[in-house]
């Protein structure tokens, strides 16, 4: 679309139209503006929204079919991430461990300023806001280590405020959990 428009513009600058009557200009005006100025953008918008809204709905943290999602609490601070597994007595810093193929709700809070929790390969980003708890749904389909980083500028340490999310297959995750609880 972009290339087409530029080419059209280039052509318009180069060509010599000869004599054109007022009536022809009016017809051209209405045709071009209706087609290019109204139909083109409105059509694209309708298409994008039709695709985008259902995609957005699928990312909502709606309760999953089989009961509640697993919950991990993450509190951001200048400059790091405190990770708590509620009722499980596990506390970590700058690292999360999750089972694969399981919806996980990250409950995001902050101890000081606004940060933003972002694991590019797993989900979009969500800010941590003072006084509020925001919920982000994560689900990893493949085991592995995913890099995450603070995405909202938060002061001097912002550039180094990264963390990792490690996804384990469910059995290995259980093993990790028992070990972590024993360590604490």
């Amino acid at each position, binding site marked *: 679309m972009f290339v087409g428009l530029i080419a059209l513009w280039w052509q318009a600058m180069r060509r010599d139209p000869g004599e054109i009557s007022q009536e022809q200009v009016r017809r051209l005006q209405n045709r071009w503006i209706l087609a290019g100025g109204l139909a083109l953008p*409105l059509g694209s*918008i*309708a298409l994008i*929204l039709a695709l985008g*809204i*259902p995609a*957005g*709905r699928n990312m*909502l*943290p*709606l*309760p999953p079919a089989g009961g509640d999602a697993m919950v991990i609490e993450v509190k951001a601070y200048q400059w790091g991430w405190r990770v708590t597994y509620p009722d499980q007595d596990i506390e970590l810093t700058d690292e999360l461990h999750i089972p694969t193929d399981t919806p996980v709700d990250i409950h995001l809070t902050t101890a000081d300023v606004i940060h933003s929790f972002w694991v590019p390969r797993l989900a979009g980003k969500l800010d941590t806001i003072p006084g509020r708890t925001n919920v982000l749904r994560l689900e990893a389909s493949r085991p592995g280590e995913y890099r995450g980083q603070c995405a909202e500028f938060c002061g001097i340490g912002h550039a180094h405020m990264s963390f990792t999310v490690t996804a384990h297959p469910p059995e290995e995750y259980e093993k990790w959990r028992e070990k972590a609880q024993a360590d604490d």
Partner: protein
Amino acid sequence: MLKALWRPTHPAHTTLGLILWSLWFVALYGGLSVACELVPPTLEQGAVNWLNASLLLLTLATTGVLLWLTQRCWRAAKRFEGSSQERLIAQVGAGAHGFSAGAALIVGLPVTALPPCL
């Protein structure tokens, strides 16, 4: 004074539609935010609940009014010749009303698909 304002060739009509659109937009966003704080509908209802329904109704009513105003200006524009001042204003007015109507419809339509407070 009011009568002159209401004439479709008055310059006020070039912005009236957009002002109505803005008011509707404020009501839509403000209403949603306030309702979600005070009396949120339950999650299980999804997109079918009283809040979305009233927002949809508001949207349709606004669109209707704007379409009526579009038609009014459009007909007025046809009564004037050439490129007179009156014709320009009535045409721009029709365009602005028409765009506002379309904009209200497009912006309002997501209420049919998404749950309100999540």
